[in-house]
């Protein structure tokens, strides 16, 4: 490891712009975790970041060989500072799925930072990021999709949505595209909002207490991040439990 990698980032590093650097200093340097999916193989991983306190920072470096499939799901909800960075490099016709939800309250700072590189033609990447933020929590998604020269047939999608339960909470979202190929399909959507007041009244008017009505709507909101996952039910129920605590 070189010295540059060891030196602490600053706010001028784009990937650390919204990070809690004081908390990060306690766990720096972050040792990258290498994951390699061999050609034609299919693998899945669920990460539940539920640290009781303190700072957690992880960096996953994923390499997908040709025709490899990797399904990554992240539930980011613990610690004062929880950062999960994913660097994925996609070979020819590889398929990468990232479904992530981050649920924060109090003064929590949670972030998901991704760099997905389509290094060869015909690879597919799908990212669905959902954040629910209460109190003074901050939730950030920085996601860069880079399409290398000649990676024609690239199909990439980023869907980023955040729900603020309090006006004091903060959501940052920056989906980013860097494209050096002509024949590509790169979609990205981003929205930050609040729970629909009319929807809540509708549910409450049928007998649901306000917390239950909110929980039901939020559960639906984050469901897409875990839909189709091998551990969908487990992730949903952990998320639901956390939502119950937040409301």
């Amino acid at each position, binding site marked *: 490891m070189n010295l540059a990698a060891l030196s602490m980032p600053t706010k001028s590093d784009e990937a650390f712009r919204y990070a809690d650097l004081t908390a990060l200093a306690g766990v720096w340097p972050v040792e990258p975790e290498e994951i390699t999916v061999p050609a034609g193989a299919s693998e899945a991983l669920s990460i539940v970041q539920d640290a009781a306190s303190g700072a957690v920072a992880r960096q996953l470096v994923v390499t997908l060989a040709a025709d490899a499939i990797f399904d990554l799901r992240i539930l980011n909800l613990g610690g004062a500072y929880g950062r999960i960075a994913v660097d994925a490099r996609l070979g020819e016709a590889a398929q990468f799925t990232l479904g992530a939800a981050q649920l924060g309250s109090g003064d929590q700072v949670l972030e998901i930072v991704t760099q997905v590189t389509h290094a060869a033609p015909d690879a597919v990447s799908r990212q669905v990021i959902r954040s629910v933020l209460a109190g003074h929590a901050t939730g950030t998604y920085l996601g860069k999709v880079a399409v290398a020269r000649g990676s024609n047939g690239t199909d990439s999608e980023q869907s980023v949505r955040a729900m603020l339960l309090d006006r004091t909470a903060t959501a940052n979202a920056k989906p980013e595209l860097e494209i050096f190929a002509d024949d590509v399909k790169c979609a990205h959507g981003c929205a930050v909002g609040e729970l*629909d*007041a*009319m*929807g809540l*009244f*509708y*549910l*409450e*008017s*049928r*007998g*649901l*207490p*306000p917390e*239950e*009505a909110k929980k*039901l*709507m939020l*559960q*639906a*909101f984050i*469901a*897409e991040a875990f839909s189709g996952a091998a551990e969908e039910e487990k992730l949903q129920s952990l998320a639901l439990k956390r939502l119950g605590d937040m409301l």
Partner: protein
Amino acid sequence: MANDYSGMTVNERLFGAGLLDDYDRTRAQGDLTKLNELLAKVGLRFENGSHWDLDPSFYMLNINNLHATVADKPILKGLSLTINAGEVHAIMGPNGAGKSTLGYVLGGRPGYEVTGGDVTFDGTDLLALAPHERAAAGLFLGFQYPVEIPGVSFVQFLREALNSQRKARGQAPLSGGEFLKLAREKAALLRMDMDMLKRPVNVGFSGGEKKRAEMVQMGILDPTLAILDETDSGLDIDALRICGEGINAIMRKPDKAVLLITHYQRLLDYVKPDFVHVLAGGRIIKTGGPELALQLEEEGYEAVA
């Protein structure tokens, strides 16, 4: 028999029930027995030269001099209305009269602020209850524009809603099987495919399907008082008949009551009201029987009011 009522309130009560003319006639005849029979219908009794309250919980719903604002704009301006168990009331009125506001105020929608008057439902102060508590107390508000809730299925939502209501009433929750049986039965009553109830709430439903789904929900939740805000709007002729028959099957019972908010006579062909009220300028300005709705249809609000 706590309160001595002023003549004004007595008149409002009688007027609200469409009995004011009968009362005047009977009083002129001096028949005290007949007078008290009449007054009992509005929860009052005449004795020693005064009107007395029989029982504050006499009415299922008692709206008394209700004032409400939306975004600081006064909409309801002294609305009084009483509904007994077993009755169907229809409220008609021009656009902007305050019909939907009345429904929302009774349902407890945030932003609809009550600035005066009171409302009791089965003797309890309705306005002091949160929306979900009103539901548990037996109130159902049918929406003019049912809301779409993506990602939440009808079945999941309704089971949770029903069991929340049951919990609040000290009843045991329904199991998944029991609930599905009930839902299937009510869906069949409204000729709705059970598969539609497995879909997200109102998402992708046509206007008519949404209204039918409202009636299915009413059947499942089994309220004592249903306030149905323009349930007939957006319905074709067949769906109108199905909804009308559904309302009768679910709500036409001695211990239940319905308040229909509508623009048109056509729903009233299927659900015969006992009383028809005209709401204009935030108040009930005329009350009559079913014939009043026909007269309104013929002559319009301006002529009748």
